[in-house]
Every structure is written in structure tokens, then in C-alpha cells.
């Protein structure tokens, strides 16, 4: 029994690793196999997995997780500026820093539940965002965003070459494909951890809290530390995602902390399926993929796509489709999200389950 399910976990992880690492191959037909986009898949996948540990397991809906993303990015860039261009310290510092902030914010916010919790997290995130834009300019460089410069000390690097150096992992440059593989490796580790958390007694307690928090107290559990830890862990995931953004592109801006960014990770998690292991990843992948594809579309490409249609029809179709591409991509995203929330609250994963059931039923009757 014990070995069997451990085996199942490992199969899942290995399968997952294989899928992630072969992304450059199977994304080719989709036209999405370039490093920038694949890095984004991995980074936002990580962000969404982490968010899901809080929202999916405990049901506490945070509207301020982007704050930790921003903190991760800023910390990583500072590590590049002050210490070294090696990404390892940057990533470690970012996670620790995000963890500390998540503890502080979580400790306070988790004194309330339901919408009050959502509003508290939103308030904290907006405060961080506003401060990053104004008073904290010495740390965040305000509107311009924090960037590397030639004058940075970088006390651990003795490299004195031309121009601004590139982030590296012990000499391997972290741009392009190596950067993707680094993000992918971290995503795989993050996924592995989330599987273990979900299947652990701790994870079961989190789900029990979601199901009936009062009962947990009368069962002898102090629910606060459970929730605070879930919040901290998911904040650390966000910090890691923020650090990876800085690793692949070493700058950090306050807009990463804005509530719209927090909203995005909520969308990803819900779209894929909150509370499931793979769902948030699928959500993140879909949103980033379509964002990339659709926002690049313009009238001309649309005309090419629908070129086979009769002229008048083509004009109409292009006009309508034009609403949803390019700048209008967000409209499509909003609609998609609305449809999922209304008809498929369990997200795409629930859709799969329903389809599976349908097939099994029709198979049986046939």
C-alpha cells in the first residue's frame, strides 16, 4: 500500500518532468517553442502552483499575491547588483525575503476570513505597490524600475568586462534556452513539493480547514499556524517566480505588484481548476500562450487567416474577431474566465472529468 502510492507519486513527477523538459519539442507545432515564452510558462506555472496551495487547499482567496512576486524580483535584482550575477544566491534570497513578508502579511490578514481576508490582502498589496512607486524609490527605483548598471559593486564577482554582465549559473548564461531549463528545473522541484504537500497530513489538514474550519478547532487543531504556513509557502512560491523573472530578464518594476497581477494568478488557478495539482499549471499555460498568440494578431493577420472566405463575410468575421485579438485579448480572457466561473467552477480539470465520465457512460451503454 505504502510503496504503491509512493510509486504513483514518482510516476507522476517523472511524467511531469518529461513533459516540461520536452516542451521545446512538442510546442514546436504550436509555434510556442521559443525560450521567452517557455520561460513564462514555467514562471507563471510556478506562481499558480503556489497560489493554489493557499486558495485551492484552504479556500482563502488572496488578492495580493503579486506583492510577493514583486518582492522576489526586487530582491533578486539587488542580489545581482550587490553580490554576484550568479543566480543561486539571488533565488535563495528572493524566496527567503518573500517568505518573511508573507509571514508578516499572512499573520495579520489571517486574523480574518472570507471576504475580509481578501480585502486585507488586497489592501496590503496595494500599499506595497504604492510604496514601491513612491517612498521606496531608493530601493525600487520607482517608475523606471530597478535595473542593473555599470556602477554596481557586485562584490563577489571579479569579472571586469565590457558592458553589463549577464546572469549566470556558475558560468552558464541564464538567457535563452539555458534560462528556460533552469526555470523548468525549478518548476519541477516546485511541482514535486506541491504534490508532497497535497498528499501529506499537513495538506489534508488544509483541506479539512476549507471544508469546516470550526470543526477543526473542536477536533483539537490550532488552525492559525496551519493557515499562516500555507500562506508563507505560497508566498515563497510567488517570490521564487518573481526571482525567475529577474533571472531571465534582470529588471524589476512596481507594476508586478499591482492588484491586476494578483488577479491574473487568480484567473490562472480558477481557469485550470483550483485545488487540483495540474490545473493551475494548465491555466497558466493557456493564459500565457493565448496572450502571446492573440495579442500579436492584427487586422492583417486576421485577413490572412480568413482569406478563404467570401469578401463581405471575411470583413464581418475579421471585424468581430478583431475585437478579441491584439489589445482586445484581455476581453477574450475576461469572457473566458466568466464562462468558466459560471458553467465550470472546477475549471478545465473539471471539464476533463466530466468528459471522462461522459465517455465512460457512453462506452458502457454501447
Amino acid at each position, binding site marked *: 500500500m505504502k510503496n504503491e502510492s509512493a510509486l504513483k507519486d514518482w510516476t507522476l513527477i517523472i511524467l511531469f518532468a518529461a513533459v516540461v523538459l520536452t516542451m521545446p519539442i512538442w510546442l514546436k507545432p504550436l509555434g510556442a517553442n521559443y525560450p521567452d515564452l517557455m520561460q513564462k510558462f514555467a514562471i507563471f506555472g510556478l506562481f499558480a502552483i503556489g497560489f493554489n496551495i493557499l486558495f485551492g487547499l484552504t479556500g482563502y482567496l488572496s488578492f495580493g499575491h503579486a506583492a510577493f512576486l514583486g518582492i522576489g524580483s526586487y530582491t533578486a535584482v539587488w542580489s545581482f547588483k550587490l553580490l554576484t550575477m550568479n543566480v543561486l544566491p539571488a533565488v535563495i534570497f528572493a524566496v527567503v525575503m518573500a517568505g518573511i513578508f508573507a509571514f508578516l502579511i499572512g499573520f495579520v490578514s489571517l486574523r480574518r476570513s472570507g471576504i475580509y481576508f481578501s480585502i486585507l490582502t488586497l489592501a496590503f498589496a496595494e500599499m506595497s505597490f*504604492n510604496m514601491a512607486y*513612491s*517612498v521606496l524609490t531608493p530601493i525600487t527605483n520607482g517608475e523606471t524600475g530597478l535595473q542593473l548598471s555599470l556602477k554596481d559593486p557586485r562584490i563577489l564577482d571579479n569579472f571586469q568586462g565590457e558592458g553589463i554582465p549577464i546572469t549566470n549559473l556558475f558560468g552558464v548564461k541564464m538567457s535563452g534556452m539555458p534560462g528556460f531549463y533552469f526555470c523548468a528545473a525549478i518548476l519541477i522541484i516546485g511541482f514535486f513539493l506541491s504534490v508532497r504537500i497535497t498528499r501529506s497530513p499537513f495538506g489534508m489538514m488544509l483541506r479539512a480547514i476549507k471544508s469546516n474550519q470550526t470543526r477543526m478547532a473542536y477536533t483539537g487543531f490550532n488552525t492559525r499556524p496551519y493557515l499562516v504556513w500555507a500562506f508563507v509557502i505560497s508566498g515563497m512560491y510567488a517570490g521564487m517566480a518573481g526571482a525567475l523573472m529577474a533571472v531571465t530578464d534582470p529588471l524589476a518594476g512596481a507594476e508586478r505588484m499591482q492588484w491586476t497581477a494578483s488577479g491574473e494568478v487568480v484567473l490562472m488557478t480558477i481557469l485550470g481548476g483550483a485545488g487540483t495539482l495540474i490545473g493551475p499549471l494548465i491555466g497558466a499555460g493557456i493564459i500565457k500562450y493565448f496572450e502571446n498568440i492573440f495579442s500579436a494578431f492584427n487586422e492583417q493577420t486576421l485577413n490572412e487567416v480568413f482569406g478563404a472566405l467570401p469578401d463581405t463575410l471575411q470583413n464581418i468575421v475579421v471585424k468581430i474577431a478583431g475585437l478579441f485579438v491584439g489589445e482586445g485579448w484581455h*476581453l477574450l480572457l475576461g469572457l473566458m474566465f466568466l464562462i468558466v466561473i459560471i458553467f465550470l467552477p472546477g475549471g478545465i480539470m473539471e471539464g476533463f472529468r466530466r468528459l471522462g465520465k461522459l465517455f465512460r457512460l457512453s462506452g458502457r451503454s454501447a
Partner: protein
Amino acid sequence: MDTIILQVLNGIDKGAAYALIALGLTLVFGTLGVVNFAHGALFMLGAFTAVTLRELLTLSKKVKDESVTFFDAYKEIPYLEIYLGDFGTAIVDYAVPLSILIAIPFMLLVGLVMERGLIRHFYKRPHADQILVTFGLALVLQEIVKKFYGANPIPQAAPDIVAGSANIGAWIGMADSMVYPWWRLIYLAFALAVIFAVFAFLRFTTFGMVVRAGMQDRETVSLLGIDIERRFTIVFGIAAVVAGLAGLMYTPISPPNYHMGMDFLVLSFVVVVVGGMGSLPGAVLAGFLLGILQSFASLNEVKSILPGIDQIIIFLVAVVVLLVRPRGLMGRKGIMED
């Protein structure tokens, strides 16, 4: 003393906008039990009815500009001016207040459709789902507006006659330097009138009495055989109108853009929380208080002691209130106090 009065005045118009949005937000929460993240979008839609009306009124004909003689120049003259002359010009000038006439039926319709078509189906779903669906709706609405009007703010002028500033200092025997834009005074008066109207409506009509009873105890009221659901739909419509009017009148103060709704919404939540979820007087009081507080926090003297305080003061207040007194200033005990 001058500075204090001036800061109060500066804060009060923003506070009035907060109060109006929060009023609808808390009305909807108190009656329907729904936390409406799309309420800010209603504020934004209201603002854009003013924009739309002005665009319609200024539909123009291209005519040759005769005053330019050495090349062919064209200028655009609104049809309204062509057909109605000076009267037409006057109508364009009054576009913002005139749009109230369109905004009331339009916002009512939007509100009813929203409640009937979408929000109604979420009464029984968890709060998180309600937040998410209204959040999604807000995204869609603001993207639609962005599609039609672009991302840049579109300035709206107040009618010429009130374009200047009132010399409040002279009225109350203070320094002449104390001036205050006329339109902001009008906004304040307008907000007070709307607030008064909503309160009077709820207090003195049978409809309002039923709604208030429903806010206290929904089940009992529906046991009495009163169709409370239909009344709640209308309440939602009223909240939409109030938000829309608040947005529309705000356009001369701050040029509307597609995301103005969300900016105000976040702050209005804070206002509702501070005032007490479901408390109408609380929302109004907290709206004005926070507006004024924010304006004092932006004083240079304050900022030199606590740098950046103006950016976070409202959120800070929200955090403190939620932790120390979760039912807010005037909320009923027990609401959400878990």
C-alpha cells in the same frame, strides 16, 4: 486654519465619490449578500455615458475654413451648431449635466440586466465565487470600454459658467487665496442630494421599508409573502444608478479612463469596511472621513514626518479597522465577525 479648511474641502469631493460608490456597494451587500467587484465598473460606465453623449452631440460636418485663404483648410463644425446655432453650442457645453438624463435609464437597465442575468445565479454560491464572477464581469466591461474609447483618459469640461473657482475665503471672511473650483462644490451638493434621496427613499416609502426589513431578516420578510427577490433586483438597479451618476459627475474633476472603476473600487471597499458592511450611514460617513484623511495625509508637513503616508493611509486605516473593530464604525454586531 486656512490650510485645515482647504484640506477638508480638497478631501471632501473625493470623499463624496467614495461615499456614493460605497453606498451602492453596501446596499447591495446588505440586501443581496453579494460582494460586488463589478461595482467600480458601474462607476466607470456612468462616466462614459457623459463621454458618449458629448461625442454624439459633437458629431461634426467637415467644412471649408473660409478664414484661411492661402491653402485649403477644413474645420469641423458640430451639426448641432449648424442647425441650432448658439443654442446648439450651449447644449454641447452642458453635455455633462445633460447626460444625467441618459445615464439614469441606462444605468438602471445595466443594473437590472446584471442582477437578473448573472448575479442572481450566485446567491447560493460561496463568497469566493461571487467575488470571482463579478471580478470577471468588471474585467469584461472595462475591456469593452477600452476597445471603444482607447486607453487614454478623455477630459470632459464642466459647463463654462461653472468652469472657474469660487472664492470661498472671501465668503467666510478668510484669506482670498482660498479658492475652490465651482464644479467640486456642485459635485458635493449633488452627492449630498443623491445620498439624501436614497435615504429618504428607503425611509419613507413602503418599498424602502420592505427593503430595510429584508436587510435585517430576509427569511421572515419572504415568509410574509412579499416578493423580496424582485425588490432586491430594483435595489441593485438603484445602486447601479447611484454609482453611474457618481462617475458621470466626476468626469470634469478627473478625466475618465477605462480602469478608473477599479481604482475607485479598491478604495470603496475600504470605505465600506471602515463604515461597517451593510451600514448605509457608515458608508457615507466613512467615505467623507477617508477622503478628508487622505487629503490631510498629502500635506507636505505630514509627508515630511511620515514619508509616503498619503499613498497608504487609507489601506492602513482599513487594516487597523479590520483587525480592531471588524464590524466597522457603524456596522451591526455579528456581521462577518468570525
